């Protein structure tokens, strides 16, 4: 049964069948082959219940929030502001790449949009300020991955939904690791630029006057981020309510910048609905598959099989991490999250690990997947914006950050408290 399931799944995905259809047809096939009851009868009700779940309303809200910030030019101005504040560090602009990506990716549903926006503003600076081209490109690719972990992450909502884990708790757990990873990225840049000063380009020294002048571009997006995340942490609002507040705040901000036009909203809404429909169809299929897998006992069988191998929980965890790293080289993050979380999380829980902690670990693994060759979508996006040179440059430049991510995974394995300390204060 296990082998059959994996074979069907791998075959469908390898043939480039849309992920939603792959998961859906796997569910339908398994229930036909393995279940005495027609489980698909429950499908209509399941699609309705999941499709109108208030928690998931956060998905279009967060995507729309990111779209408005992007289309109203707020992201661009934020990047310029970051340059003034972070430009003096060894590595200059590259820190702004990480900083703006972290902040913007956190509110945007699309890593393509994030990397594309930051990349278009940043790439022309490479020649002007004589940066090491590969490393500079690597910072854009790596920075764009941070949104998966930093709340309000859509991926954490999806993980929470599929594994019955509290989303606010996951958000709390993701905060420190997300911050730590952003800092580690910056440390990586500083260390590399101290070792090889010629990589760091000419530093940008801004006066305090310029820095203060840049604040109006910087404070509003940071303010929106704080309103959204803060209201969740303070217990004022649920993730969906916080996301709605964020959308309204972003629209007000766009209006102040005289960018709140019907045209802007139309483009923002098109992007939002395209992403939402795509994500939701996969989620609906994944929820159905999840249901079939547990009814036919496959989830349990898999957990029993793994625990029966007689490895210690830690050894098993290492194997799981290794498998996910390899998978990440070939799969894009959303598909990877929605296919693996329902299968792997029960095993992890059976081994005695905390599902909240594993959720965070899984997010870092997904981030790694975004920049590991051969299939790392951010690598392709950055290369696509650059429109010249070799793909290999981007891969080389991203490699140090892959190493940093591995260090982060090791930290999380060795010190689960990094993720669990904040939630333990509240829950």
């Amino acid at each position, binding site marked *: 049964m296990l082998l059959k399931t994996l074979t069907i799944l791998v075959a469908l995905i390898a*043939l480039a069948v849309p992920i939603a*259809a792959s998961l859906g047809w796997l569910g339908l096939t398994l229930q036909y082959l393995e279940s005495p009851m027609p489980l698909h009868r429950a499908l209509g009700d399941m699609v309705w219940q999941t499709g109108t779940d208030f928690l998931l309303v956060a998905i279009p809200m967060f995507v729309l929030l990111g779209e408005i910030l992007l289309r109203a030019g707020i992201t661009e101005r934020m990047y310029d502001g970051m340059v003034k504040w972070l430009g003096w560090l060894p590595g200059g602009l590259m820190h702004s790449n990480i900083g703006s990506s972290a902040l913007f990716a956190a509110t945007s549903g699309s890593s393509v949009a994030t990397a594309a926006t930051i990349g278009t503003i940043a790439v022309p600076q490479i020649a002007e300020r004589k940066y090491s081209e590969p490393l500079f490109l690597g910072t854009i690719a790596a920075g764009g991955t941070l949104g998966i972990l930093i709340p309000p992450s859509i991926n954490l909502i999806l993980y929470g939904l599929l594994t019955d884990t509290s989303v606010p708790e996951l958000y709390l757990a993701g905060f420190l690791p997300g911050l730590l990873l952003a800092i580690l990225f910056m440390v990586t840049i500083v260390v590399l630029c101290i070792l090889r000063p010629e990589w760091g380009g000419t530093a940008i020294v801004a006066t305090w006057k310029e820095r203060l002048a840049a604040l109006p571009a910087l404070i509003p997006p940071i303010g929106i981020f704080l309103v959204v995340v803060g209201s969740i942490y303070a217990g004022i609002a649920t993730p969906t309510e916080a996301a709605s507040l964020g959308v309204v705040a972003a629209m007000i901000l766009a209006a102040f910048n005289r960018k709140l036009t019907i045209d802007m909203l139309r483009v923002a809404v098109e992007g939002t609905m395209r992403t*939402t*429909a795509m994500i939701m169809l996969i989620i609906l299929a994944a929820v159905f598959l999840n249901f079939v897998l547990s009814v036919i006992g496959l989830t349990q069988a898999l957990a029993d099989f793994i625990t029966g191998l007689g490895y210690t929980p830690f050894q098993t965890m290492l194997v799981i991490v290794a498998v996910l790293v390899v998978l990440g080289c070939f799969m894009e993050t959303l598909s990877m999250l929605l296919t693996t979380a329902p299968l792997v999380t029960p095993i992890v829980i059976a081994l005695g690990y905390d599902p909240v902690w594993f959720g965070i670990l899984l997010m870092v693994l997904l981030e790694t997947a975004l920049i590991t060759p051969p299939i790392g979508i951010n690598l392709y996006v950055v290369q696509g914006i650059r429109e010249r040179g070799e793909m290999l440059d981007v891969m080389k430049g991203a490699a140090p950050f892959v190493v940093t991510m591995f260090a982060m995974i090791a930290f999380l394995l060795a010190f689960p408290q990094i993720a669990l300390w904040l939630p333990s204060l509240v829950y």
Partner: protein
Amino acid sequence: MDRILHTARKTSQILAWVGGTLIILSALLVTLEVVLRKLFNISLGGADEVSGYAFGIATSLALAYALFERAHIRVDALYNLFPFSLKIAASLIGLFLLIGFGAVIAWMGWGLVVDTLTHGSRSITPLRTPLAIPQIPWILGWFFFVLCGVILFTAALKALLAGNATKTDQLIGMKSIDEQIEEEMK
């Protein structure tokens, strides 16, 4: 055929705008609810329920738009290595399976709506919403998705049989990263 395809595409875009408007309205409603609750201790009640319905309807209305925009994610690890003819075949099979799954959902969803209509079901919340009101536009979105899928599949197959495989690829092939970036930039 091109005319039908064009109309379907245009309609799907309009429905996506309708869906997006529902999402923006939900954001305003939920924000109003939070502000009133926190500052004035007044609860509108039901903002969560109503925005849930709006979300469900918005999603089903936008499915067809995402289809025409080739936004439904496929994994390209092997696909990129396929020769052109195999890419076309994989795209046709993929679209067929996607629409098939959509049709199963639409069929089962229709069963749910018929149940709702025969029993006059209402939500078990203080609002006691007659569920037919949100469920009818919701199921129509799913029907429209399947209909557009059939139109797109027919158009793609017709182009292929007419010897115009490039057009088939433009209609249903996987979007390259360059195409995606181009769209972000325009």
